[in-house]
Structures are given as structure tokens and as C-alpha cells.
């Protein structure tokens, strides 16, 4: 037995209350085995990883239980002894390769330093070892790359360097904390392959901590499912994913959008042990036919005909370049073509998906349509009205009023100093679309009710809400201008899978009810399949393929679409 954890309790003592981040957790890992530790945010999975190498953030501390590594008790070892365990015998890989390397030291320096510390060899020998290590994690021209700084590597390459650093001391156990969460799907597949390969060739024990069941399905031999500090179920990966026993595991798995078939609604995670928020049940619906939300404003009525059959969004030959390096002479400037001659049209009431890896320009397209960037060339029409003209033009204003956006990060997209009431009321007050202040407040309360938050939320501040609740506030704010088109830029990628299911269901409901048109941007193919009627695949600022969603998933035409689909994490093998 390489690692054996028995009845581990981890507490975070705050001034008044003590939070039990882990409650009698028992785990074990064998050499040559990958254990997946899966759970949603706040489940305590990272805490376990940090507790093993005694790097808990204060005030966290292990209050009970034992951690035996190769039969040796790690609990109660002093700092000096632990330092010889860390790196030498247990390696750690962190989530974000952008931040886990020291930006001011060459990667060679960082490797050599670590090798010398763990192996006590000469400088030249350490240099040699470092080159071999880099080669073993798949970095070509390792000798030359030793002199590079971290910022000269791409995200995936950096994660390889991080893995090389974790392997520097020839450890027996690797703890990987969300090692691929910050990476694109194609890079994720490579890194997972690498970890899996290293596990087998070096006979390592690996603990992968992740929230992503797809990752677990791809790499783990065994799984432990965590929920609120408890391990609710552990066992063989095929058994857990194929035939889960515990209620929580079942609902967690059912909340993952299936890649292979389209469902009408997402199954939501309803296993909440009595303490969860029951907002979904107390939700009060408003009648769209009679309510303010269902009517059109003066501005919208006068300028955009209700029977208007023009496409909701039509862009043609849209281009935008960013300046990478300025210069006086035009030929010396280095430009990045973020969006390169893109054309598509979205019919009213349609859900249109835009999918691609990071840097493909999909968010830039959204920002161009929303008017947050000005295009270099091309046109943008909303409901048949060009919106690139003067913002004071009432026609442009009316068209803009019909388009709203929901952003990716629910934490930074709400002003922390405003009450929810003022956040949601802002579009109403800006466009003066309500009769009076009393009416505005009533509308805000109705909207908050409608998105499932409850009218009481109006008087609170954003920090009092969880990520999913904040995204509901964003949606309420977007609805407040009574738009006909919603742009959703990765609305759920910062959320847990169970919350994601709720938000996506809410969006679907609202779309049906209000006849909204959705431009849905995501890197997550299964989500796109569930949400969209048609999809455009983007790469390097250009569209590779536009197709009906089902057609794309069943028989992708473009080479790149096929490539993306092949890399998509699948769970159906266990289904």
C-alpha cells in the first residue's frame, strides 16, 4: 500500500465556528494506480491533497486520523522531515500552469534547483537530469528550452514543465490538483495521456483531484466521490460511473451533459441533504402575456416592427485585428487577426452555438456584435438594423436595446458596490422604460422571482450570493431591457456541473417563454449539443464549419471539427 488515509478530519477554525473541510475520510492508493478524487467546489477535495503533504493554508489543520505513506505515519512529522517528503517522495501538480512557475527564473534554473535539492548531485549532473526530464515529458529540443522563461511556453507546454518539476525528485506518489482545468480540450487530452503514461512506466501512484467527471472517466482506475467533506462512494471507475450506488453520485453523473444524445432538459442534481437552497420550488412565475416583460417599449415598437422577419443577428465579412507590437511603419507592425472575415446569420428564435478552443476568437465575435469592440471591416445587423452607426441614432439604440449579453465570470461581471436592485434596474433606468421608480422596483422584483432568486434578493449585495445565483442575477439584468437576442459568453464554465444544469435549464425555459434568440458561446461540446440548433466551429479567427447541431455531431465535415469531437471526453463507454 503506497498511501493509506484513515479517518482523516481537517478543520478550519474561524473565530466562532469550525468548518470541517474533511470528515473521516479514508482512502488508499497503490503504486501504478490512478485514483480520481471527484466532487464539486467546496467538497474538500483539494484540502485532502494539501493535507497529505502538510501544506494546508492556515488556519486549516488535521485534527484526527492518520496518513500513512509506505507504511510511515506522516502526521506529526516536523517541518524538516516533511520537506524531505515533499518533492523527494510526493510530487504535486497544480491547476494553473500560468501561475505555478516562477516568472523570473529560467525553467532550467527551476529544474536544476529542485533536482539538486532532492538528489544532491553536481550542477552538471543536475543539468543533464533536467534535460532528460524535459524530454521524458515530451518537450522537444530540451537543451535549448532550458534557457527559456515560463512566458515563452504555451499553456500545455508549461504544464509539461510543471510535471517535470514534480517528477524531479523521483517521487512515488503524484498529487495532481485539477491539472487540466485551465487547458483546452486538445491539450487536456495530451496532458492526461502523459500523466497516465508516466504512472505506468514509472510505477507511480497518482491522485487526480478534479471536478470534471469526463477527466475521471478518461484516466482513473478507481474513483472516490466527495460531497461536503465526506467520501460518499468509492470504487472501480467503471462501476461508479456505470452503476453508481449513492444518490449524490447518481445525480452528479446525470447532470453532466451527455455528448451522445440530445435531451429536452438537464437532469438537475437534487441530492441535497436537507440544507440546500430550495429556490427552485418556491419560484414564482409571472404571466408573460400581461406583464411588463412581455410588452415592447416605445423605442422598440416604433423602430422595430413586431412582424419583422429579418435575422436576429446577421454579420458579414466581420474582421478585427489586434496590434501585438506597434511600430511607426505599417509593415513592421505585428498584428493578430482575432476575427477574420466571418459571416453568419441567426434566425429569430434560434439557438446558435459558437464553439472553439481558447484564442479561436469566439468571444471577440460576441464582443463585436455587442458593440464592445469596433470591427476593422464588415457589418453587424440586429433585427435587420445595422448597429455600427452613431450610438445616438434612435434606430441603432432600439436595435441595441434588443440585444443583451451574459458574461462568463459571475464574480467580476457584477458591480460589488451596488445592490442587486440597482444592478438589475440599471437598463430600465438607462432606457427609461418604466413609468416610475415604484414600477421599476416592482419589475426588478418580478424579474428576480422569475429567474428563481426570489424578490428578497433585491436588497442584498452580490457577494452574498454563490456563483450560480450571481449568474441568475446577470440573466435578470440582461432581461431587464426586454431583449429579443441574448449573447451568452461561456455562461456556465465557471460553475459546478449541478449549477450548470440549473442555469442551462433556466436559459432554455426563458427562451421558450419569451421567444428569445440565443447566441451561445462555449468550448464545451456536450453543452453546445444540448443548447443549440445550429453550430459554427471556429479556429484561428475563422469559421471552419456551420452545420445543424445533430449533423455536426453525427457526421462532422471539416477536419478540425472531427478532431475536436474525437477529443471530447466521453462517459458513454460506461453507460
Amino acid at each position: 500500500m503506497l498511501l493509506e488515509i484513515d479517518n482523516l478530519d481537517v478543520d478550519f477554525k474561524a473565530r466562532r465556528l469550525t468548518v470541517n473541510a474533511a470528515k473521516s475520510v479514508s482512502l488508499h492508493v497503490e503504486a501504478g494506480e490512478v485514483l480520481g478524487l471527484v466532487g464539486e467546489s467546496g467538497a474538500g477535495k483539494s484540502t485532502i491533497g494539501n493535507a497529505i503533504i502538510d501544506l494546508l493554508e492556515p488556519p486549516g489543520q488535521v485534527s484526527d486520523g492518520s496518513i500513512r505513506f509506505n507504511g510511515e505515519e506522516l502526521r506529526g512529522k516536523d517541518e524538516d522531515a516533511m520537506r524531505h517528503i515533499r518533492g523527494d517522495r510526493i510530487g504535486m501538480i497544480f491547476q494553473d500552469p500560468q501561475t505555478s512557475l516562477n516568472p523570473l527564473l529560467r525553467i532550467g534554473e527551476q529544474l536544476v534547483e529542485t533536482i539538486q535539492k532532492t538528489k544532491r548531485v553536481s550542477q552538471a549532473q543536475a543539468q543533464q537530469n533536467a534535460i532528460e526530464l524535459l524530454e521524458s515529458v515530451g518537450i522537444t529540443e530540451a537543451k535549448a528550452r532550458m534557457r527559456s522563461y515560463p512566458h515563452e511556453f504555451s499553456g500545455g507546454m508549461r504544464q509539461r514543465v510543471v510535471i517535470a518539476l514534480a517528477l524531479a525528485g523521483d517521487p512515488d506518489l503524484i498529487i495532481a490538483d485539477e491539472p487540466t482545468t485551465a487547458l483546452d480540450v486538445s491539450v487536456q487530452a495530451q496532458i492526461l495521456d502523459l500523466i497516465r503514461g508516466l504512472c505506468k512506466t514509472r510505477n507511480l501512484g497518482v491522485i487526480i483531484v478534479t471536478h470534471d467527471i469526463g477527466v475521471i472517466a478518461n484516466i482513473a482506475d478507481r474513483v472516490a466521490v466527495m460531497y461536503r467533506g465526506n467520501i460518499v462512494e468509492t470504487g472501480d471507475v467503471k462501476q461508479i460511473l456505470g452503476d453508481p450506488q449513492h444518490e449524490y453520485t447518481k445525480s452528479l453523473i446525470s447532470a453532466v451533459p451527455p455528448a451522445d444524445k440530445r435531451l429536452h432538459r438537464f437532469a438537475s442534481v437534487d441530492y441535497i441533504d436537507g440544507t440546500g437552497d430550495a429556490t427552485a420550488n418556491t419560484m414564482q412565475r409571472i404571466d408573460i402575456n400581461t406583464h411588463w416583460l412581455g410588452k415592447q417599449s416605445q423605442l422598440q415598437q416604433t423602430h422595430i416592427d413586431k412582424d419583422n422577419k429579418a435575422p436576429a443577428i446577421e454579420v458579414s465579412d466581420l474582421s478585427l485585428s489586434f496590434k501585438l507590437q506597434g511600430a511607426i511603419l505599417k509593415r513592421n507592425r505585428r498584428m493578430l487577426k482575432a476575427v477574420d472575415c466571418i459571416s453568419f446569420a441567426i434566425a429569430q428564435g434560434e439557438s446558435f452555438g459558437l464553439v472553439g478552443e481558447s484564442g479561436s476568437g469566439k468571444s471577440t465575435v460576441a464582443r463585436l456584435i455587442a458593440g464592445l469592440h469596433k470591427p476593422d471591416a464588415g457589418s453587424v445587423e440586429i433585427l435587420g438594423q445595422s448597429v455600427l452607426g452613431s450610438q445616438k441614432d434612435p434606430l441603432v439604440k432600439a436595435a441595441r436595446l434588443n440585444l443583451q449579453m451574459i458574461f462568463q465570470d459571475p464574480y467580476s461581471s457584477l458591480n460589488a458596490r451596488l445592490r442587486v436592485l440597482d444592478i438589475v434596474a440599471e437598463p430600465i433606468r438607462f432606457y427609461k422604460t418604466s413609468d416610475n421608480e415604484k414600477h421599476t422596483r416592482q419589475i426588478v422584483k418580478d424579474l428576480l422571482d422569475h429567474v428563481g432568486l426570489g424578490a428578497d434578493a433585491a436588497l442584498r449585495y452580490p457577494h452574498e450570493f454563490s456563483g450560480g445565483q450571481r449568474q441568475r442575477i446577470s440573466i435578470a439584468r440582461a432581461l431587464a431591457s426586454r431583449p429579443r437576442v441574448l449573447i451568452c459568453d461561456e455562461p456556465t464554465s465557471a460553475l459546478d456541473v449541478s449549477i450548470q444544469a440549473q442555469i442551462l435549464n433556466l436559459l432554455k425555459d426563458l427562451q421558450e417563454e419569451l421567444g428569445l434568440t440565443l447566441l451561445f458561446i462555449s468550448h464545451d461540446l456536450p453543452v453546445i449539443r444540448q443548447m443549440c440548433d445550429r453550430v459554427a466551429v471556429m479556429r484561428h479567427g475563422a469559421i471552419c464549419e456551420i452545420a445543424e447541431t445533430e449533423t455536426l455531431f453525427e457526421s462532422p465535415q471539416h477536419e478540425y471539427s472531427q478532431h475536436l469531437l474525437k477529443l471530447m471526453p466521453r462517459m458513454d463507454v460506461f453507460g
Partner: protein
Amino acid sequence: MLAYILRRLGQSVLVMAVVSLISFSLFNFVGDPVNNMVGQEATREDRVKIYQELGLDDPIFTQYFRFVGNAVRGEFGLSYRSKRPVDELIKERLPATLELVLVSAVIALVFGIVAGVYTGIRRDGWLSKFILSSSLVGVSLPTFIIGIGLIYLFAVTLRWLPSSGRAGIVDLGWWRTSFLTLDGWRSIILPAITLSLFQLTMILRLVRSEMLEVMQTDYIKFARARGLSERAINFTHALKNTLVPVITIIGLNIGALIAFSVITETVFQWPGTGLMFIQAVDFADVPIMAAYLCFVALVFVVVNLIVDLLYVFIDPRIRITGR
């Protein structure tokens, strides 16, 4: 890289041009220069003659370019008071100021960085708390109070150190130094401490807050997880990352030390450029004031140029973007 240096140099030249314009205008705004030079009994003809000799009847642009041309060669004319060339006076006084600034900068840097790193790492130790609270005294008390306090304690009461002046000077021909004798060191120590206290506090607090921030980063956590020693983490990984903002402040401060050693030099009667400047203000000695202004600007510009180049040396990311 070359373009980066050239751009910075171009900016420096621009700054110097503006400053020279300001110091040139001193001559025209701070009283009538001829009035300052001649006595009460000078006749009208005498005045006109001097007026012409000084070229004050030339167009203003000609006068300005003449001023700049002379200034580039280090000539700022004669002091109204002592009738000696200004550049000679400055050269005579400069070693005293530069030595004072050097000693106080070393004190501020060494103690500031060491104490900053210490208080950043041992956040809750009693020594950290003591250092932090006593450093508040350093910022809040004005320099002259600290100077007078030190004189009272070490010169008047304990009689360990001289109270004022610069003693034990050795003339090297091109430089008059007080570093070579014990007396010289004894006389420099109090003014240097007085001058350094404010900078020391600033550096200490800056290094501390940067350290606190850096210690929270993922790469420090990752370095810990690789089992690196505390010393390697604190002094190689963390300290280097705190340096970019620290160097900016240090650069500005060394300029400030030279420029504003005025008060300390007055309190300790230290025969440096600051004392000379104060005396020049007393007598409306415009050539000295103008020259001093240009000199201080030059110091700031040169120090900042060095700082900018140091950034590139420390942080490889700046090399790529070239800013």
C-alpha cells in the same frame, strides 16, 4: 531592445529641455539680473553696458539657446554673491552631498530590504510588530526633528559624535572625501541616518507588502510542494519577484535623497549642494538656483533611466513586449 533604450533616452532629453526652459525663465522672473549685479551707485550707462555685455538685449530665443549651449558644457555663469563660476562651486560641494547620499542609501537599502523581508515572512512575530510600529515614527516625524533629536542624544548628551560639519577630509585632487578617516566617518554617520530614515521606512513597508503578496502566489506554493528550503524560497523565488516595484521606488528615492538633502544639510551644517542651494535662495543668487535645478533634474533623469534598464535585466517579460 535598442529601440527601447533609444526611446527612453529620447524621453530623457525631452524632460531636460523642459527643465532647462524653466530654469532659464528664473533669470527673467526672479528680479532684474542687472540690478542684482551692480551696486546702488551705478549709473544708467553702466547698467546699459552690462545689459549688453550679458546679451540681455538679444531676442529671448537667442538667449535661451545660449543658456542651453552653456549649460550643456556645464557653464552657468558667475554666482551673484561670490562672483565665482557656478560649476566650480557645485563641483566643490558635490562630493560632500554624494557621499552623504551614498551612505544613507546603503543604510536605507540594507536595513529596509532585510527588515522588509523579515516582517513579510514572520508576519505575526513580536519583532515584526515592533519594527512596523517603530517604522511609523520614521515616516511621521519630520527630518529636522529627528536630526535635532539625534544631535541632542549622541552629540550633546553622550558626546560620542560631532554635532555638525564635515571633518577629516582627505583631498584626492579631484575629489574631497571623508571616507578615509575615522573623523570623517564620525561626522557623516548622524546626517546619513537622519537622511535615510524616511527612505528606510518606505522601502521596508514596500518590500513587506510585496512579500506578503508574492508569498500567496501559486509558484511559491509549488516551490514549497517541491520541498525547497525556506531560504531558497524566500530569497531566490520571492525576493526577486518583489524587486520590480521596489526598484522603481528606490530609483525615485535616490533622486529625492540628492535633491532634498537640503534640510538635513542645514540641520547638520553639512557643506553640500543642498546647503549651498538654501544659501543661494537667501541671497536670490539666480545662477546657482538655475544650475541646481538643472542638476537635480539630471540626477532624476539618469537614475530613472538606470531603473528602466534594470527592469529589463530583472524581468524577462519586459524584454519581449519592449513596452
